[in-house]
């Protein structure tokens, strides 16, 4: 695994390898690395998901992921961040998103990681369609309102 060739903020059709992003963010000043992997869950509210389809406005999504990374590196000094999102068809237990954050101290590493997933769900133009046995639907978690209170 060559961590040097990693794109730290990427939207990709390829399966995600969490270990590569952990290695990418690890550095001698880090005492804590947190990693979040969003995985495809089979059952949601009693409904069985067969698979998911993710779609993105790719250039804007990558730009927004990088912005979240910059915000984190500013809010939590000496942190390092990588955020990658997979698109296309994903099966149960596949990893949709990986967020890796390193920090000198653990509290910041947890907080910054959670901040990243909240921001992704708010502003990054990526959509998920759930495909069940008897239908399918594009899921809209929440609307982004520029100038509104969410941001």
């Amino acid at each position, binding site marked *: 695994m060559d961590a040097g060739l990693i794109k730290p903020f990427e939207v990709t059709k390829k399966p995600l390898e969490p270990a590569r992003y952990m290695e990418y963010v690890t550095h001698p000043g880090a005492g804590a690395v947190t990693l979040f992997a969003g995985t495809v869950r089979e059952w949601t509210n009693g409904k069985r998901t067969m698979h998911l389809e993710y*779609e*993105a406005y790719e250039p804007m999504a990558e730009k927004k992921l990088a912005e979240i990374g910059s915000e984190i590196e500013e809010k939590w000094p000496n942190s390092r961040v990588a955020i990658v999102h997979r698109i296309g068809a994903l099966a149960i237990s596949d990893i949709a998103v990986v967020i890796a954050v390193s920090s000198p101290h653990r509290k910041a590493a947890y907080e910054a990681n959670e901040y990243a997933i909240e921001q992704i769900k708010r502003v990054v133009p990526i959509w998920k369609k759930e495909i069940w046995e008897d239908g399918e639907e*594009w899921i809209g978690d929440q609307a982004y309102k520029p100038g509104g209170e969410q941001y």
Partner: protein
Amino acid sequence: MIHLHYFAGIKEVAGKAEEDIDWVDGTAADVLKWAKKSYPSFDFSSVQIAINEEYVLETEPVKPGDHVAFIPPVSGG
């Protein structure tokens, strides 16, 4: 001319991911009005507009050559 980008449910209703339309002058609200008229079966009420990959308010001017994307509620993660 401006370049329009559709995603998720809008893309399915429009039957395409992108299209170009003639454009001289106007705002994001005007583009949205055009889209609502062109694709009346889609509910645009919670759709945001991005111009050249940046979220904008509906008062933002749209200039020829701009990329205008209709962003339905996102659901990544």
